[in-house]
């Protein structure tokens, strides 16, 4: 009990701090300079209709690269952390039979989900959505597949290859930006195109595709690794 009171005291102190940080002040009615710049110059400089996408892919592309990297890291770590031992892998598993309906539905819906995911990241620079959302959707499709058929082995090689290639391509595009345009991850080495169309905003859609593929592959990797993990015997 005394402990809980102490916890509460600490949290109270924390709350005081956070509310002091916020100050409960009313919000600005105006965008600050940075945001205003994005709003005003963004369309010319990047050419993406979705300003969030232009910020994510170009202005703060390095963050995004890092973010992809973190997922990649998490997937890699989980990959070797939860890696099942090869000899155990073949051990017969007691499998719960899933329902016919789920199996059939999965077969039908999964491709649709995949397509939707791809749509989301291809249109990321125009409408809400993008690489992450699309990637997550693709991974959800995979989850559905696994739910429907738990015994099914996911081909790690494919995931791995997609992951590697898309990640490397992301970097390559960044370097193109450096070599051909203003700087690392500059999208302007491809023509910016007509504002608001699919093939606009230079390399943004391309990058978003790779991000989407990569995120999808990484999330799938995480999920499938969690799925296949076994007791570690050391």
């Amino acid at each position: 009990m005394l402990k809980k009171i102490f916890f509460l005291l600490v949290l109270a102190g924390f709350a005081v701090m956070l509310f002091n940080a916020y100050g409960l002040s009313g919000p600005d009615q105006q965008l600050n300079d940075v945001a205003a710049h994005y709003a005003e110059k963004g369309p010319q400089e990047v050419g993406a209709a979705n300003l969030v996408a232009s910020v994510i892919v170009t202005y703060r592309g390095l963050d995004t690269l890092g973010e992809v990297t973190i997922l990649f890291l998490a997937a890699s770590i989980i990959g070797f952390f939860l890696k099942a031992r090869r000899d155990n892998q073949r051990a017969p598993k007691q499998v719960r039979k899933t329902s016919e309906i789920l199996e059939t539905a999965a077969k039908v819906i999964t491709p649709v989900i995949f397509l939707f995911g791809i749509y989301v990241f291809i249109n990321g620079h125009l409408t809400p959505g993008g690489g992450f959302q699309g990637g997550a959707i693709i991974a959800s499709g995979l989850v559905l597949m696994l739910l429907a058929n738990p015994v099914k082995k996911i081909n790690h090689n494919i995931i791995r290859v997609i992951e590697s290639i898309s990640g490397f391509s992301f970097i390559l595009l960044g370097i193109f930006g450096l070599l051909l345009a203003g700087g690392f991850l500059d999208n302007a080495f491809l023509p910016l195109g007509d504002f608001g169309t699919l093939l606009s905003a230079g390399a943004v859609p391309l990058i978003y595709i790779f991000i989407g593929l990569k995120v999808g592959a990484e999330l799938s990797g995480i999920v499938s690794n969690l799925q296949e993990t076994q007791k570690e015997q050391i």
Partner: protein
Amino acid sequence: MILKLIAIVLALAILLMGVIAVENKKLVVAVIAAGVVSLFASVFYLLLAAPDVAMTEAAIGSGLSTIIFFYVLNKIKKDRKDHA
């Protein structure tokens, strides 16, 4: 005005779900509650003019994240059964 009311209701719901997620003894309920928090949050993001965030939160926060939770819970449950 209505927007604000909805926002307050959502905020309260988020907090309520948060408390449930923390205090409920059953892990399954807790995980679902946490997922619901994310779901409500993504609605909140829509109110806050952030559709991108809302999508992400829905797909990742309440979707994938909950699924991963369940995978692990499942493994643990199975393990417990094996052990017993």
